[in-house]
C-alpha cells in the first residue's frame, strides 16, 4: 500500500501536470487568431503502477506534452484544391479584363465607339449609303471615317491585349520570386523539423511549414512527398523537384523570343507550369492560350477585311475618274487606292501563299485621307456609277473571313470568348466552394474554438483545485500522524 507521503507526492505531481495543461490552453487562447496555428491538446499518461506486497498501487498521472490537431491528408487535399481554385481564379481575372474590351453594344441605335461588331457593320454600311449617291462627298467622307473608327478600335483592342499579356508576364515573374522565397523557407523548416522532431509532430514548426505550403499552393501547382524523419519533398505537378529535404531548387526565368519562359534546373517548364495550377498556372494559361487565341481571331478579322476591301477599292474608279491602281511599294505591298495600310504579313503571304496573320490587328490603320479616292464606280465606268460601291457593300455578306462573313465571324468570336469566360467562372465557383468546404472541415479539426478552451480551462482549474484540496487534506492527515495523539504540536 502506498504511503501518505507518496500520496502527497502524487498530488504535487498532479498540480504540475494541471499547470502544464493550463499552459497549453492558455497558449491556444493566445493564438486563437494566429494564421496557420493548429489547436493543441494536452496529452496525459498514467504513471506506471507500483507492485507493493502483491497489490498494484496507482502512481498518478503526468502531462506528456501537447499534440497538434491536424489531418495531413485533409490538408494536402485542401492544398490541391486551392491550387485548382487559384489557377482558375487568376485566369478568370485575366479573362475578365479581356472581355471588358468587347463589351456588348446594347443600344438599339447606331454604334457607340468601342464595339467592333458595330464598327464592321458601320464600315460596310457606309458603302451601302454611297450606293444612293456615289458622287456625294459627305457620303465618301463617312466611308473614310467609319474605316478609321474600325481600324482604331481593332488596333487599340489588339494593343490592350498585348499590354495585358506583358502585364501577366510581369505577374508571373513576381509569382515565381514568391515561390522561390517560400520553397527556401520550407527547405529551412525541413532541416529544423528533421533535427528537432524526427519522429513526432513538430508542433509550431509544422504549423509554419503547413502555412507555407498553403501559400505555395495558391501560387503554383505542387505535389508533396513525405520523406524520412518528418522531412518533405515538393515537386511541381509535372514532377520537377522544388524542395528536397533541406535544399530547394529555384525556378529561373528567361526570355525566349520575347516571352518570359520559366526553367527548373535547365529544363523549360513553362508549358507544364501553365497546366500545373496555382495563380502562376492561371496567369500562364491566360498569357499563352487565352490572349493569343483572342488576338489570332482579331488578326484574322483585320487581315481579311484589310486585304479584301483594299483589293476591291483598287479594282474600281475613283471620284476623279482615276483607275489602274498600281503597286506603290513592293516592300509593304501597298497599292495606290488602299483604304487600310497593308497588313505586315501581306508581302510574305503573297510570295509564299501562306496565311500568316500575326500582328495584323495591332497594325491595322486607315491610310486613305482623300475621300475622292474611294472607288464607287467600276473599272471603265463614269464617276456616277455605283457598282463598285455595291461590290464593297456586298463584301459584308460574303464569306471573306475564314469562311464566314465578317459579322458572323465577330459574332462567333464574342460567343466563344464569352463561353470561355463563363466556363472558367463556373469552374472557379465550384472550386472555390470546394476549397471552402475543405477549409471548414480542416478548421473544425484544427482551429481554436474559444468555447472549447473555456470549458477545458474550467475543467483544469477544477482539477487543480481538487488536487490542492487533496493536498490540504493529506496535510491534515499527515499532521495527525506526526502528532501521534499529542495535542497541537503540529498543525
Amino acid at each position, binding site marked *: 500500500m502506498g504511503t501518505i507521503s507518496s500520496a502527497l507526492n502524487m498530488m504535487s505531481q498532479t498540480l504540475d501536470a494541471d499547470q502544464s495543461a493550463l499552459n497549453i490552453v492558455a497558449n491556444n487562447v493566445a493564438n486563437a487568431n494566429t494564421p496557420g496555428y493548429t489547436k493543441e491538446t494536452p496529452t496525459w499518461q498514467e504513471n506506471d503502477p507500483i507492485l507493493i506486497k502483491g497489490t498494484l498501487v496507482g502512481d498518478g498521472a503526468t502531462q506528456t506534452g501537447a499534440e497538434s490537431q491536424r489531418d495531413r491528408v485533409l490538408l494536402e487535399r485542401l492544398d490541391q484544391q486551392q491550387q485548382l481554385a487559384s489557377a482558375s481564379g487568376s485566369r478568370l481575372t485575366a479573362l475578365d479584363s479581356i*472581355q471588358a474590351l468587347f463589351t456588348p453594344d446594347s443600344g*438599339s441605335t447606331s*454604334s457607340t465607339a468601342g464595339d467592333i461588331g458595330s464598327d464592321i*457593320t458601320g464600315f460596310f454600311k457606309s458603302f451601302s449609303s454611297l450606293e*444612293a449617291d456615289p458622287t456625294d462627298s459627305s457620303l465618301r467622307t463617312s466611308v473614310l471615317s467609319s474605316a478609321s473608327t474600325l481600324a482604331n478600335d481593332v488596333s487599340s483592342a489588339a494593343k490592350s491585349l498585348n499590354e495585358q499579356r506583358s502585364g501577366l508576364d510581369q505577374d508571373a515573374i513576381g509569382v515565381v520570386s514568391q515561390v522561390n522565397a517560400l520553397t527556401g523557407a520550407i527547405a529551412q523548416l525541413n532541416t529544423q523539423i528533421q533535427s528537432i522532431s524526427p519522429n513526432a509532430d513538430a508542433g509550431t514548426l509544422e504549423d509554419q511549414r503547413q502555412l507555407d505550403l498553403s501559400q505555395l499552393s495558391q501560387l503554383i501547382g505542387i505535389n508533396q512527398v513525405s520523406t524520412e524523419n518528418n522531412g518533405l519533398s515538393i515537386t511541381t505537378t509535372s514532377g520537377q523537384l522544388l524542395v528536397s529535404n533541406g535544399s530547394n531548387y529555384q525556378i529561373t526565368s528567361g526570355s525566349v523570343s520575347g516571352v518570359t519562359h520559366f526553367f527548373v534546373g535547365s529544363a523549360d517548364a513553362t508549358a507544364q507550369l501553365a497546366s500545373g495550377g496555382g495563380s502562376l498556372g492561371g496567369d500562364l494559361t491566360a498569357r499563352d492560350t487565352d490572349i493569343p487565341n483572342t488576338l489570332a481571331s482579331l488578326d484574322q478579322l483585320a487581315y481579311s477585311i484589310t486585304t479584301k476591301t483594299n483589293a476591291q477599292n483598287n479594282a474600281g474608279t475613283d471620284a476623279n475618274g482615276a483607275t489602274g491602281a498600281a503597286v506603290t511599294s513592293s516592300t509593304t505591298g501597298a497599292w495606290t487606292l488602299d483604304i487600310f495600310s497593308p497588313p505586315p504579313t501581306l508581302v510574305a503571304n503573297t510570295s509564299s501563299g501562306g496565311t500568316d496573320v500575326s500582328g495584323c490587328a495591332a497594325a491595322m490603320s486607315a491610310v486613305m485621307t482623300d475621300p475622292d479616292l474611294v472607288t464607287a464606280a467600276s473599272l471603265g465606268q463614269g464617276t*456616277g456609277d455605283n457598282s463598285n460601291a455595291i461590290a464593297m457593300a456586298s463584301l459584308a455578306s460574303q464569306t471573306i473571313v475564314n469562311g464566314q462573313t465578317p459579322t458572323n465571324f*465577330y459574332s462567333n468570336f464574342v460567343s466563344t470568348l464569352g463561353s470561355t469566360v463563363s466556363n472558367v467562372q463556373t469552374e472557379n465557383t465550384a472550386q472555390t466552394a470546394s476549397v471552402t468546404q475543405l477549409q471548414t*472541415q480542416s478548421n473544425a479539426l484544427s482551429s481554436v*474554438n474559444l468555447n472549447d478552451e473555456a470549458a477545458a480551462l474550467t475543467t483544469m482549474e477544477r482539477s487543480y483545485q481538487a488536487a490542492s484540496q487533496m493536498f490540504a487534506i493529506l496535510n491534515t492527515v499527515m499532521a495527525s500522524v506526526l502528532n501521534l495523539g499529542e495535542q497541537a504540536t503540529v498543525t
Partner: protein
Amino acid sequence: MRVDPTYLSSLTTSLDQTQSSLQQLTSELSSGVRVTSLSTDPVASGQNVLLLNQMQQDDSFTQSSSLVKGQLQVADSALGSVVSQLTQVITLATSANNGTMNSSNVKSISSQIAGILGEITTLANTSYQGQYIFAGGQTSTAPFSTSTATSPAVTTYSGDENINYLQMPNGGKIQLNVPGDQIFQGSGSNSVFAALNSLVADYASGAVNTTQAVADTNAVSTALNYVSQQRVTIDNSITHLTSATDAVASEQTQLTAAQTTLMQADYASVSTQLTLAETQQTALESVIAQLGSTSNSLFSKI
C-alpha cells in the same frame, strides 16, 4: 461533433457575395441592360452582334432610300413634263399639217417646236444635287447637246449605258436610273430628238411637205409612247422603293423588339431579385451581430 469555429468569417464571405449580387442587380436596374459583359450570356452576345448588324443595315437602307427617292421623283416629274410637251408638239404639228396655215404661221410653229425642243433638252439634262440623272454613269457632264450645223439639227448623247442599282438588305436590287439615250434616242422611230429635229426642219421654210411632216408627226407620237414606257420603269422603282422601305421599317421594329428582349433587363424580375437579396443581406447582418456578440462566448460566463 466539432464545428468550424471561424463561422463568422464564412458569414462575412456570404455577406460579400450578397453585396456583389446587389450591386449587379442595381446596375442592371439603373442601366436597363441585362448583358453587361460577354460572359453574362455568351449566346445572347453573339446574337446581339448579328441583330445589330441587321438593324443598322436596315437603318442605312431607310436613309439611302429617302435619298434616292428624291432623285427618282425628279426623274419622274421631268419625264412627265416631257410627255406633256410632246403632246403639245403633236397638237402644233397636226394644225400645221392640215394645210390651212400660211407660211409665216408654219414658220412660227417651227420656232415654237424648236422652243419645246430646247425645253425637252433642258429636261433631259435635268440634274439632281449637281448630278445629271439621265447621263448613265457620266453624271458630271450634261448628256445632251444639239448641233444646228446641219439641217435637220442633230442632238447627241454623251452619257453612257450605265444603270445604277440600290441593293436592298434582303439582297434584291432597285433600278435607280434609265440612261438618257434609252429614253430620248430609242432606235428607229423611237427617238424623241430625231423626230423633233426633223419636224423643226420640216416647218422651217414655211412650205410644208405634208407627206414628210405627217410621217415625222407620227414619229413624235411613237416617241411619246416610248418615253411613257420608259417612265414606267422609273415609276416601278418608286413603288418598289416605297414598299421595300415599309418592309424594312417593319422588320426593324421586329428586330428591335427581339434585341430588346435579348439584351434588356426584365425590370419585374430584377426588382424581385433585388428585394430578395436585400432581405438576405439584412438577415445575414443580424446573424453576424448576434453571433459576433462577446456575451455569447463561454468565457463571459466563467
